[in-house]
């Protein structure tokens, strides 16, 4: 799983661009799959709808999950993930707009593993990844190219 996929669930295109840039700037070269809302995220995770036929044995190394999304919210996605044996153990890092977000408490109650402030605060992201024991799988897995 050295090429673990990162699933980014984010509906705001600006936050998406900033998060992708933050990952790139920090030499995280894993494949990033972007789902633009909760429905799309679940479709990808469970190989349904537009993603029918996807090999669902392949689950992401980590899910970066925004909470405030149209259609299906992040909390609902989290709940569904924790109910399904295929995604029950996939690490989920919640993206919050503030540390004191009420939703943060609910996220932990539903089985979130960690949180990171938006746009992905890198010190926090590294710390979250470290806590999840995935540090070497994600961070600096390829030495930065030197000119």
């Amino acid at each position: 799983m050295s090429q673990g996929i990162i699933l980014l669930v984010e509906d705001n295109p600006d936050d998406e661009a900033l998060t992708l840039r933050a990952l790139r700037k920090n030499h995280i070269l894993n494949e990033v799959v972007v789902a633009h809302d909760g429905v799309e995220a679940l479709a990808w995770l469970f190989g349904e709808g537009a993603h029918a036929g996807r090999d669902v044995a392949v689950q992401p190394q980590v899910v970066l999950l925004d909470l405030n999304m149209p259609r299906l919210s992040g909390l609902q996605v989290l709940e569904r993930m924790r109910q399904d044996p295929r995604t029950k153990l996939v690490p989920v890092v919640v993206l919050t707009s503030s540390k004191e977000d009420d939703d943060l408490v609910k996220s932990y109650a539903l089985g979130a593993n960690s949180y990171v402030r938006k746009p992905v605060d890198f010190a926090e992201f590294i710390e979250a990844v470290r806590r999840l024991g995935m540090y070497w799988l994600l961070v600096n897995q390829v030495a930065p190219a030197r000119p």
Partner: protein
Amino acid sequence: MLVVDEGGRILLANPELQRLTGFAEAELVGQPIELLVPPEARTAHAAHRDGYARSPRARPMGSTLELSAVRKDGTTLPVEIMLSPMALGDRRVTIAFVRDSTEQRRRRRELEDAHAAAQAAVRELEAFSYSVAHDLRAPLRTVDGFAQALIEDYGERLDDTGRDYLARARNAAQRMGHLIDDLLALARLSRAQVAREPIDLARFVREADGRLRQANPDRRVELTVDEPLRADADPRLIAVILDNLLGNAWKFSRPRAIAHVEVGRRGAAYFVRDDGVGFDPEYASALFTPFKRLHAAREFEGTGIGLATVARAIQRHGGRIWAESAPGAGATFLFTLAAEDTP
């Protein structure tokens, strides 16, 4: 007015009581007092009366009990009753003063309704400001995030003026972020329940002081704390209060080579004193209003919400806050944590 004997029989009923109940004097005297009690409460009342007869005590008017009397025609009448036991020769009797409380109850209901409506409006407003504050953060993140991306990725292609413009844009975005955070904190505080417990304010003072020392390693500030500073207060709110007051004391004493901060007690009040720049007492009333600042932002940074938050946290305890100062003479903030008389 009624006089009732130990057995609960009516001995006397004055004309006003006859008017209130519609019974004639002869229909009342000699009857058990339960005649005037609504049927559903009669059994309980008789038991209650036996208990009262064993240990009679005065009961003042206006206790919150909502009592009812029943009239001759069967209608009920909301009443307030004051009981006063006394000896009449060798008999122990009870004088009952009965007052029609229809009007009081109507007014109280109106007051309660108005209060409930006001509270609902406040909650709605807070929920609204909470969601607005949250929604304001998203575009702000975008502004700050891309300004940062520009500086990092394209900074070399800009001259100093260009980089300065971007730095200003970022500063403003971050300042607005702080404003929103502070507003959220203020809104949260208004909703928080106050959970009092015995605490030592000195511990919170030392913790806040430790954080300030860490954040300002180049400052020299001497702290004096009266220990212990006991209080019965909500520890989370106390932390907010003391963090803000000490933070201000440090901030506004910055021009001093060696500043002095003192925390202690004066009468029923606690105080935080500094020897900083102080403020003009003429404007003291504006201190606790959100967004009101008495100093230029270029001189002392801040959002103007800190003291409003402190005032709210103190109000939640039923206390009050006030300040004493003169320009250049330092400032003293005094506060109480209970609704007692303050100097």
